[in-house]
């Protein structure tokens, strides 16, 4: 099977993620979509690593996972405080800052 399909897949995943960020309201879901995009990038890294035949890409993907984990920590912290103070996780409710 042609390896470039993995790239298409990652592209598709990335797009799905991006669309998700734009269309979904729930902060958690939005955040998950971001994670999806990160993983799309990971997939790309690994694929390229495979194509180019060196390990840098795979190393990169490990770093990404770690960083993503940290992001989850910070992100959830923020979202949870949001939720506690507003009793809602909808990003559209968080629109006091405007104009």
């Amino acid at each position, binding site marked *: 099977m042609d390896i470039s399909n993995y790239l298409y897949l990652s592209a598709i995943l990335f797009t799905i993620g991006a669309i998700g*960020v*734009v269309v979904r309201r729930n902060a958690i879901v939005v955040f998950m979509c971001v994670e999806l995009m990160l993983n799309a990038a990971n997939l790309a890294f690994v694929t390229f690593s495979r194509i180019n035949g060196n390990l840098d890409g795979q190393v990169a993907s490990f770093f990404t996972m770690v960083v993503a984990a940290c992001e989850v920590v910070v992100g959830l912290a923020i979202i949870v405080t949001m939720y506690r103070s507003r009793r809602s996780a909808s990003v559209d409710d968080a*629109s006091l*800052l*405007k*104009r």
Partner: protein
Amino acid sequence: MTSSHLVYLIALPLFSSAFLILMGRKADKWGHIFATLISAAVFGVGVSEFMAMHSRAGDMRAVTQHLFSWISVGTFQVDASLLLDQLSICFVLLISGVGTLIHIYSIAYMSHDKDRRRFFAYLNFFIAAMLLLVLGDSYLNLYVGWEGVGLASYLLIGFWNQKPTYATAAKKAFVANRVGDVGLSLAIMIAFAQFGSVTFDGVKAGVHGASPAALTALGAMLLLAAAGKSAQFPLQSWLGDAMAGPTPVSALIHAATMVTAGVYLITRSNFIFDGSSTARLLVVIVGGITLLFGALIGTAKDDIKKALAASTMSQIGYMILASGLGPVGYAIAIMHLLTHGFFKAGMFLGAGSVMHGMDDEVNMRRYGAIGKVMPITFATFGLGYLAIIGVPPFAGFYSKDKIIEIAFNAGGTKGIILGGATLLGAAITAFYMTRLMVMTFAGSKRWDDKAHPHESPVLMWLPMVVLAIGSVATGFLFNSGNSLVNWLAPVLNPNNVESGSELMKPIVVSSLALLAVILGVALAVTKYRTVPVEAPEDVSIFTKVARRDLLQDAFNETVLMRPGQILTAGLVKTDYFAIDGLVRLIGAVVSGTSTFLRRIQNGYVRSYALIMVIGALALIATIWVVTL
């Protein structure tokens, strides 16, 4: 030849006027005396210079005095230096002489005015400026005096400017003169562009190399200047209103001296006009038109001063016409200028004296039979009258006859037309002057009993007497042995051009002229045997028009004033709505965009994300386009 005294002619009156103004009320007591003495002193200097000049040979007579370098930029070199030659000495004597007489007259005439000191300061300032005008050795120096006398005339016409109409008259005079000044400025510019010099000598030296077109342009501009200053057609309209000034002013400035500056300018620039027949033609046309124009107005005026003003206008028309006739004419023009200076000044003073007696009544219809109560005024005025209408052997006869004569001798149809015009003018002059005499001094008294006409004090009638003598004698004096013409010849007619053709013998001309005068007088006497106190309304359309100065003001208003006002108002709007409006529009657009940008910042994180996505896509798209 140089002389070191010329500067006093200007400095003395200039500083005395400044002094009198700066002193303020402190000088009220003696200011008028001081000013008069200064003027007399100037006359003294003038006479001594004349004596000195007279004692020198013909070609040695001109003297100069270099004061300091005024403007020097590149080749544009103008020195403040003075030139006194046979031409200017005539003016110096006229100005300072008549000027002094009028100073004396004014002491009494203005005695009741609390601003008398200021009046005399102005008078001295005028003397200074007028002398600078005739003494400057370059057109630019002349220009300074030219505007100076304009200013003096403005100040003096508006001397009683608390009366709005008087203030307006003053402004009108200044503006009309400015129009003339445009001519003078442009003339100077042309002179510099053509000859690289603006001194009389420099221009004279260059004339031969210049193109006729240039000389014509130069002449035309000078004529425009002259028309402005000397109230010639089409810039004549201010002179009538200028009578708002105190009568001595009318006598000095608006009869004897300033208004004749135009004639001086043209005769002084003889070398230019000699070079361009077209320019000369323009001059005679203007002169001819004006002399009839003024005369016609004169026939309809009931205001004694305005009637005299109209006559001044017409008489200067004569001079201009004469000076337009080339070398033979210049001297004659000057002669008429001098004689006119005497008799017209005398008559204005007479008019002033009458007004003085009639507590400032100017309407001749309210005069009548004044001759009995004011014998001296009547006598002096009468002599002036005889002079102006040209009865031999009075002054006007010599000068005016000469003009008519050379006008006929101009040759061809031109000669016929000009001669006819001058002749007709003479007739009309006789008519309106007689009308004036009759309405004022003869007939039955028409003034109401409140007025107590009385002879004026000696300080007033003395100058009148002197001037009367002048208007009797000068003509004969100047004419005997062509003394004046020969005196002026080195300046005005260096290569002794003789009158070309001779259409008629002088004696014929004289008799024709006399005939015209007699006709005029007779007509007037019959017509004005009885004068209604109220000006009759059922008069010919011609009289109506003449009363309104032949519609000259109406013309100016409709053609110049109204459009000007409309233009101004329009431009003010343009400035606000168009030019500034454009700037405001830009501002509005920017702030509008700004508000829009604020709106799209709607606070929804998802739409921000959307904007980012779109941005990213745009990024890819463009790079793609560039890459492929």
